[in-house]
């Protein structure tokens, strides 16, 4: 078998045992890594209704098929477990260097079960693995722990994946970092790792992906061509030039910059937080992930010194900036540092603080509740203090560490209206009242509000635009307005969702393949085929993506999720308070009708939102039909 190491490292922390599993080619072609492999393992090995923080929860760290290949943006791996934030299928992807290093060490995935009696970390050195004590690391910030592990193992090239103090304290939106700059932020999976007393997984490998490939020469040629293309394509050029913080001003101009907990779509102090200010006051350098020519990562100075944690992405600028009413870019960069030191998901953390600010302004939280903090929108100092309280689960931070949905239920009154979440996960910093397919993605995603389900509507608004033309090989040729729903828009969604899911299976970044970025779909397929020798078609590729999505949906079906959970926060059905889209809302009836259309396209029952037996058979998932029938 080509393109894969075909090996899974299985670790039982309760017993301290480590084993190797070898995968067959027939199996791997059905579930070729990442989201597909993780979904299969969770669905078949995790007992239904397992409490997320119990030792029985299963954690999967799964590389994509192409993770580590010499192709720009093929760097990502998936972490998966039952989510303590949503109670459903938990998943979060990250780039960086850890996934490729794991592949170079000879492993496609690590599956962790049980709970260590005391804090430990896992050391994977090529084909050898051992569980080592980590009591001396417990409670330390992530930068200190990375340095300690590299020092005690005597190799500064070791790649360290780890949680921070927030994961140890079971903050429900605690994340996982690798190299301090790349994050499996979403779904609270850092807290699951913390519940297992597993602080870190350190990895060192010396294999090269090319040695696994069916046709290494072709794979190298594709990678070389794409590396040259990065600077010639406007989309990837802009990602390299500005990175994601470049989104701030155009979103504001379009009236879709989430502001003050999604009440507003424009921020009056946008000039203080837009890219030019970031470049002038924070930026020190540009960085990248393994073998990626895009170089969208940013290095920044915070409090007059180089930050060890990299710079804030757009999501972080948005979450702690406009969405909290904060216009102090230094404070936003500090918030980014704190999140990465404690290892909190900066999206959920910022969104939960924005929620708390709105509760405070409505008297639902008082000075007594906040420990004297004046938690009004715009108070950057209070925001920074609350991040630390959340990271330590102290004071008001203990309540907010539950995420905005659970916190709202405890606060009561109008608080649930202010909780901008789906399935318990906070919205990312993309305003769906201006991008209806983004709203559909928030609603339907198995992991709760996720902004990476489909390429955003705005890319397909104009005929002749480069992104629409780049989507033609996927079957998308018609321009459609961002604020539209209906049959044609749902067809677009259905195609883009399968393509996006394929990216999460194969290890591609959202900033790699067209239509979001620069890699033509045919080069994605050629890369897969050069790696594996499979000669897969576009149809098979989209089916692989769709199968992975259905595995996640089946997991949620087993946990009791149905159509009623595929919804949006009530606020989104009301009008924006300001900006270019002032007064605009998502039309509820049309949204529900389009959800039905989408279910039908996906082969899901319109009443329940669950896969039909016919669909599961078509995807080769007939073995899972009982999962749905037992739910009904």
């Amino acid at each position, binding site marked *: 078998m080509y393109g894969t190491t075909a090996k899974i490292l299985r670790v039982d922390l309760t017993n301290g045992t480590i084993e190797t599993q070898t995968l067959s080619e027939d199996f791997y072609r059905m579930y070729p890594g990442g989201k597909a492999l993780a979904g299969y393992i969770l669905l078949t090995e995790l007992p239904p209704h397992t409490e997320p923080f119990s030792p029985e929860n299963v954690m999967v760290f799964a590389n994509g098929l192409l993770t580590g290949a010499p192709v720009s943006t093929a760097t990502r791996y998936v972490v998966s477990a039952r989510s303590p934030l949503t109670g459903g299928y938990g998943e979060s992807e990250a780039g960086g260097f850890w996934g490729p290093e794991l592949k170079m060490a000879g492993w496609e995935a690590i599956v962790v079960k049980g709970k260590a009696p005391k804090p430990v970390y896992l050391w994977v050195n090529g084909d050898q693995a051992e569980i080592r004590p980590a009591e001396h690391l417990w409670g330390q910030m992530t930068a200190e722990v990375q340095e300690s592990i590299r020092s005690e193992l005597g190799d500064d090239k070791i790649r360290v994946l780890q949680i921070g103090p927030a994961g140890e304290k079971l903050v429900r939106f605690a994340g996982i970092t690798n190299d301090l700059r790349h994050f499996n932020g979403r779904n609270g999976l850092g807290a699951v790792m913390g519940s297992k007393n597993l602080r870190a997984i350190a990895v060192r490998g010396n294999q090269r992906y090319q040695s696994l490939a069916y046709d290494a020469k072709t794979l190298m040629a594709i990678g070389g061509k794409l590396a040259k293309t990065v600077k010639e394509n406007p989309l990837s050029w802009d990602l390299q*030039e500005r990175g994601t913080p470049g989104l701030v001003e155009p979103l504001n101009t379009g009236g879709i910059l989430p502001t003050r907990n999604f009440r507003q779509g424009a921020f009056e102090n946008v000039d203080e937080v837009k890219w030019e200010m970031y470049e002038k006051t924070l930026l020190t350098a540009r960085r990248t992930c393994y073998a990626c020519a895009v170089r969208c990562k940013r290095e920044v100075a915070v409090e007059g010194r180089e930050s060890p944690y990299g710079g804030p992405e757009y999501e972080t600028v948005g979450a702690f900036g406009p969405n909290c009413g904060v216009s102090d870019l230094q404070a936003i960069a500090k918030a980014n540092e704190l999140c990465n030191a404690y290892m909190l998901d900066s999206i959920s953390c910022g969104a939960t603080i924005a929620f708390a600010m709105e509760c405070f302004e409505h008297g639902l939280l008082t000075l007594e509740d906040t420990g004297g903090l004046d938690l009004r929108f715009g108070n950057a100092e209070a925001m920074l203090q609350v991040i630390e309280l959340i990271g330590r689960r102290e004071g008001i931070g203990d309540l907010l560490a539950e995420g905005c949905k659970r916190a709202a239920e405890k606060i009561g009154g109008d608080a649930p209206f202010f909780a901008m979440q789906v399935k318990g996960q906070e919205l990312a910093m993309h305003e769906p009242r201006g991008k209806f397919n983004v709203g559909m993605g928030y609603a339907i995603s198995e992991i709760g509000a996720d902004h990476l389900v489909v390429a955003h509507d705005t890319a397909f608004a104009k005929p002749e635009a480069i992104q629409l033309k780049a989507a033609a090989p996927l079957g998308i040729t018609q321009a459609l307005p961002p604020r539209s729903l209906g049959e044609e828009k749902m067809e677009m969604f259905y195609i883009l969702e399968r393509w996006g899911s394929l990216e999460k299976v194969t290890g591609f970044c959202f900033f790699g393949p067209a239509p979001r970025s620069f890699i033509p779909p045919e080069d994605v397929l050629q890369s897969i085929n050069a790696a594996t020798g499979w000669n897969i078609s576009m149809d098979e590729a989209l089916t692989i993506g769709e199968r992975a999505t259905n595995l996640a949906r089946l997991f949620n079906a087993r946990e009791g999720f149905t159509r009623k959970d595929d919804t949006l926060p009530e606020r989104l059905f009301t009008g924006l308070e300001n900006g270019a889209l002032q007064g605009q809302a998502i039309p509820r009836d049309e949204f529900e009708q389009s959800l039905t259309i989408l279910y039908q396209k996906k082969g899901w029952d319109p009443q329940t939102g669950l896969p039909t037996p016919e669909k599961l058979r078509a995807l080769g998932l007939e073995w899972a039909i009982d999962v749905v029938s037992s739910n009904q």
Partner: protein
Amino acid sequence: MKLYAGGHVTFYMPGRKHTLEISLSEPTPLREVLARVGIPLPEVALTAVNGELVEAETAIVSDSDQVRVFSAVNGG
């Protein structure tokens, strides 16, 4: 007029600089200005003239105007 390009339309600006000063002797359709600069109109998703949203296809601009054009804003 002063032209600012945000997002990937900056790619089409001379020298890939985000700002450009352009002399206009009379009010001119923005689409003509953009064509002169080399920015393809289909790539312009949002246009603000002196802080007001306008349609790039129909806007008329003058020498004293501040014009900001942006590509479609993508996620991620």
